């Protein structure tokens, strides 16, 4: 459990730092990095980075959107279409980021295994 929490925090911190100078797919690098630093087991390999980035993207988009009364989020939630619900859009945003990170987590774990074993 301690490992999971540590991995989770490292993913978020790395993702946050990478985002300062790299495009959105840097969440994948963050997940690979975390996998190297703190190895995980079984399904957590995917789910911990998934949760980390899900949370980061969800909260970040909420933070950006809330200060503007969710005007754009409501419109994009019509476009996609998510019935105009800005929170659903934040969930989708989180899932997209989480998916990218989770899959990168799997790769990171495999890479670590090959190098270290």
């Amino acid at each position, binding site marked *: 459990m301690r490992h999971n929490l540590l991995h989770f925090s490292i993913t978020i911190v790395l993702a946050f730092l990478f985002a300062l100078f790299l495009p*959105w797919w840097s969440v994948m690098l963050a997940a690979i990095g975390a996998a190297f630093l703190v190895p995980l087991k079984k399904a957590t390999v995917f789910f911990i980075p998934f949760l980390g980035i899900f949370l980061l993207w969800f909260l970040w988009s909420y933070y950006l959107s809330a200060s503007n009364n969710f005007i*754009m*989020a409501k419109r994009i939630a019509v476009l996609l279409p998510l019935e105009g619900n800005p929170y659903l859009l934040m969930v989708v945003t989180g899932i997209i980021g989480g998916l*990218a990170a989770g899959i990168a987590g799997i790769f990171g774990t495999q890479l670590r295994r*090959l190098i270290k074993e």
Partner: protein
Amino acid sequence: MSLHLEPYQIAYKFLIFKFSILLFMNAIKLIASFLLMLSVGYGLNVKFGSVPPIGKFLNPYTGIWQNETDETTTGTLSIPNLKDKVTVHYDAQLIPHVFAQNENDLYRAQGYLTAKHRLWQMEFQTFAASGRLSEIIGEAALNYDRQERRRGMVYGAEQTLKKMSEDPTTLAQVQAYADGVNSYIAHLKPEDYPVEYKLLDYQPEAWTPKKTALLLMYMTKMLAGGDNDMENTNALRLFGKARFDLLFPDFYNYTEPIIPKDHDWSFINVLQTPHPNTEPVLEAVAETITKPDPNYGSNNWAVSKEKSATGHAILANDPHLGLNLPNIWFVMQLSTPNHNVFGATLPGALGIISGFNEHISWGETNATRDVIDWYKIEFNTNRTHYKYNKEWKPLKKRVEHIKIRGQEAYRDTVLYTHHGPVVYDKNFKSDNNLSGYAMQWTGFIPGNGQKTFTEMNKAKNYDDYKKALKHWVAPAQNFVFASTEGDIALWVQGQFPNKWEGQGKFVMDGSQPENDWQSFIPQKFNAHVKNPKRGFVSSANQTPVDEAYPFYVFNDGYETYRNRVINNYFNSKAQFSVDDFKDLQNNNYNLKASELMPYMLSLMDTTRFNSDEKEIYQLAKHWDYNNAMDEFGPSIWKAWWDVLYDMVWDEFEVENMALTTPFTYQTIALLKNNGDDDFMDLINTPEKETAKDLFRLSFSEAVKNLNTWKTKHGSLKWVNYKGTFAGHLLQALPAFSRFNIPIGGGKNIVNATAENWGPSWRMIVEMTSPPTALGIYPGGQSGNPGSQFYDNFIDKWAAGDYYQLHFLPNDTATKAIIGTQTLTPLK
């Protein structure tokens, strides 16, 4: 067999074996997970069809969440090449009030600020103008792009640019504007791009003076890009001259022209071009290029100080254009120490287009004259020359490179004659190897229309206004004018060919020099009026003049209703106030319906009505011909008229032939006066119908249509049935559009709000010193759908209200100002 292994050897081999299997498995897993990761990453970063690159689009660092921003209205910005400081005050409507120290700085700031609020729109419109949409959206736009190139949009813009470049002042200003736009683009990071770029996954490119010319060309096409020569030619061939003239008379049985009927034309000493006795070519293409919506139009008027309740002249303008988001207009105040002007700008063009300064006010309506003519061209066998004046004249080739997203570019060769581009030939909507159709258009005449506005912005009186107009070539406009001195005027300005009687109504033989445009009407003889006796000037896209005007003008779609309502109103009493102007701009009287529906209702035999018909009939009878939101009458009229009109002109439903049905006014006149004409007969029935039969048949059909609609969509109240909407420029993308706008009015009504076009800017200016003005438009100052200023004017506009325009006398902020930005030279 001497194979013998010790147990430790077996164990060792087994371990090696197991390890390599493990290694192999891990390598497989590694490669698999790597590929999976790459494909997910890639898949989320590219566009699939119309689906945006979803990871790029939704991530919170550079995606749409970064467009959840309000407008900044404070701070200091450094702009390269500014000479002096520029102060920008924003009021609560996000209207920038710009105070510069010289004109080049002013236009640099205008470019910068327009880009700041409307970058995507201004660029997209010029892409649309120049036939470059395939670059953005792919092959789906190729036919559109080819059509725009072939109608000479880029060629026309190049002529405009050439003319602008001959004038050092204009060139410097247009360049300053472009530089201003580019200073804005230069500091944008991908996360700052307007949301449309993210949706379509592309980047803004640099602005150039040519793009300003393209924007002007875009307006020329929108307002003077329509004609019916091909359709008229087909109709002439189909029905013969006598019938054609009955359906399409040069003038109607009434005229209420822009220039009052009693006008004295004796000052004109140039004659109309004599008829050369050439015959039209009775050939045309089966399908023509898309034309602008013929319903685009506008109103403007002004009353003299004597006719004004306050003793100051009052002027109004409301251009009727497509209702889009972002709106076509962007409102600004533009000021230097030498001039101070306020009004609506067109993103991409310099200066104020419809507005006022300390001395004058002006506004435009479309003058819709026939300024496009078609010539049949005969080629030699290898298509290098065309026949002209019994000789072979060389063709010029223009190769249009159309870039297509994700594909190789398309090359389209367009042949040019001295008339203009051969739009239709074997490569485009025509199949004849040896002939084609060339287009002559005032849009191709080099003109510095931009200068009309930069000069008009500084005009101090009637003479300055008149001088500024001289640069205006196309699209021809009715420029209304009022001054603080008390003058009112109206010029129908454009460069008009001096046509012979009937010239350009039908396709002409391009090999006969007599069919060329022989000369142009000298500018000073363009129809105009200053301080008429009646005390007001007005225009609403009706015929500019009556038959007394010494040059050839014919009806090719002039409006016939709004003008009469407006002029009747100004003839109804002695003096008018700003409130009267508001009432008139919001006037919903349906003169068209009132000229036919009572007649139709009176001829109805109600005894055999079913219950639905009885109900609708009662509702129709009680209508007062006002297109108010809550009325049922306008819905009934529209449903009825649509069916009736199609029934009358069933003769025009011919396959593979471009035809235009007769105009509304003449249709109504024929229904009332020629009710037993052969055209009334339904060709698909054995009986011979008259107008009266059509009224009854169309009524039943309309009642059915109305009830079907009602079952599907609910109440038949006009506001629902009409369903006015302001659609985003990207095919009315619902997420960025506004639907069911609560407003009355309609087609051919002074409040011309129909389903998707209407008063795109309403302005009323009282010529006090300084002038006091009201204005509003259906949109908002920001082009960002994530801004509260994106569509915030719409409800007030729909309710018929206005904003007081804060005309600041100098750069001192008043109470109306909510934020100030300073643009400083970049050191």
